[in-house]
């Protein structure tokens, strides 16, 4: 199975990278761009056949290491 984890700063936590990218996009002429957030994607292969079990394991990985729950939220996608 393949796991894809998207990690983003929580809403309300200032994303200065996102802000800088937004300013740059505005500078290039895309002036209607708003709310840019820069995150991180982590993908990996995972043993086992049980998608629900895999999701629970990846969730634990996010809590322990892949995300910092103080400042970041995450989304887990599991594919066969």
């Amino acid at each position, binding site marked *: 199975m393949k796991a894809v984890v998207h990690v983003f700063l929580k809403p309300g936590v200032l994303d200065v990278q996102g802000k*800088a990218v937004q300013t740059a996009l505005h500078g290039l002429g895309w002036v209607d761009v708003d709310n840019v957030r820069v995150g991180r994607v982590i993908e990996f292969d995972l043993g086992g056949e049980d998608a629900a079990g895999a999701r629970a394991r990846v969730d634990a990985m996010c809590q322990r*290491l892949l995300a910092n729950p*103080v*400042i970041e939220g995450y989304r887990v996608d599991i594919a066969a």
Partner: protein
Amino acid sequence: MKAAVVVFPGSNCDRDCKVALERATGARVSMVWHQETTLPERLDLIVLPGGFSYGDYLRCGAMAALSPVMGEVAAAAGRGVAVAGICNGFQILCEAGMLPGALLRNAALRYVCKPVALDIVNAQTRFTAAFGGRREATMTVGNGEGNFFADEETLDRLEGDGQVVFRYKRNPNGSSRSIAGIVNPGGNVLGIMPHPDRAFEADLGSADGALLFQSVLASA
């Protein structure tokens, strides 16, 4: 006084900390590699130094917080041993859950490296007692991700319980409530973004960092 400085791959202030401690306090300082699973006996202070442990991979301090030695550091802190995390060391303590909050990218997206004026908010801690009646200090910051963040409830608790120890007079990085240094509820674990290890002799521009280390010595 007996002290240990933990060395992670990518630490770059470890030797500065050793020299600063030796000169400021006369301490015997052991360098402890992060893969160690034991610490020297009867330590008075453990320092997690500044630098870029593990190249700041994933998040600053995230990998170092899982190093084998950190279990021993947490156990020593639980026994009341003083622990000081400086700069990257502060990030590691937050990632390890030994201090609340997290350090974000600087609000202006710039690495800041300059002397900063600090208010000593709590002069009664094990890290500030030697400042005596002084309520101000100067130390150098050097960070790109020194923007202290915690939710409002945590910030209120930190302030209410006297856990905010140092505050910037002029906030260099966007830190919540201008916080530069905090302690845990037990008062024996300090996280500080400015470098006392870069301010331990007048020739360095300030000797105020020496007072921080001497405070620990006085309580040892």
